[in-house]
């Protein structure tokens, strides 16, 4: 079922409030620009129900792993970072558990080293892998004819 809005790009807007997407429009249920409300009340909730009417593109959370055979649901440039994260946590646990102050200090230092490595990999790979765009850019000019 299609919507009644002919030009959604002109008559609908969205924004985010916390964990909620807000959709508002200035058209009525027939898709006509609303004239029943004054200018200050023009934007309001969408006035019609449309199955699958909204499509979103978004950053999604990777799938969790639950068994030893699972692969990680992330690009492989991040995988070394995951190993660093786990080592960081395990060294921190060791630092907290060991009764020997010297061993604890060594474990803490190792934890901090892996923490730095984890942050470096995640930030560097996060910047590089934001998208896979490469090559020269071309500006598509307007058609003047």
């Amino acid at each position, binding site marked *: 079922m299609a919507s009644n809005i002919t030009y959604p790009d002109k008559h609908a807007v969205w924004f985010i409030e916390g964990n909620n997407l807000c959709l508002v429009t200035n058209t009525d249920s027939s898709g006509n620009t609303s004239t029943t409300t004054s200018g200050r009340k023009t934007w309001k909730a969408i006035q019609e129900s449309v199955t699958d009417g909204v499509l*979103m593109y978004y*950053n999604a959370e990777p799938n969790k792993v639950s068994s030893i055979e699972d692969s990680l649901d992330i690009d492989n440039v991040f995988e070394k970072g995951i*190993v660093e994260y786990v080592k960081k946590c395990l060294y921190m646990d060791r630092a907290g558990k060991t009764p020997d102050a010297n061993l604890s200090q060594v474990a803490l230092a190792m934890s901090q080293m892996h923490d730095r490595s984890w942050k470096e990999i995640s930030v560097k790979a996060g910047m590089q892998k934001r998208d896979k765009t490469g090559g020269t850019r071309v500006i598509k000019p307007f058609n003047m004819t």
Partner: protein
Amino acid sequence: MSVHSLTVKNILSRIRQVFPDAQENYVINLINDALVEMGYYSNKIAHAKISAVANQMWYDLSDGAEDSSGNKLELNKVKRVYLMDNEGDYIQIPRLTDTNLLLTDITSESALEAPD
């Protein structure tokens, strides 16, 4: 030759070089913690369709939110939103920066949290 990719088993074997007693379940939990943090970076772009509901202003995007097919959205950050037009095509709609709308919609605000 296939691209190098790690499984949990590979990670566990690397970890056990240093921590031979590391528990499998604990390491899996730590990997999941790391994956949640990795979700901040745009390494997994997904798309989902949700149904527009008459007179509903707010749509849930929390961890438990689902698309119109009942799949969990697992959404971290919305990049673009499209709305279906009268011909059934999805048209990108702009994001509103001044969100101080005068008219609100109390009937659909159940999506927002009310005081306990």
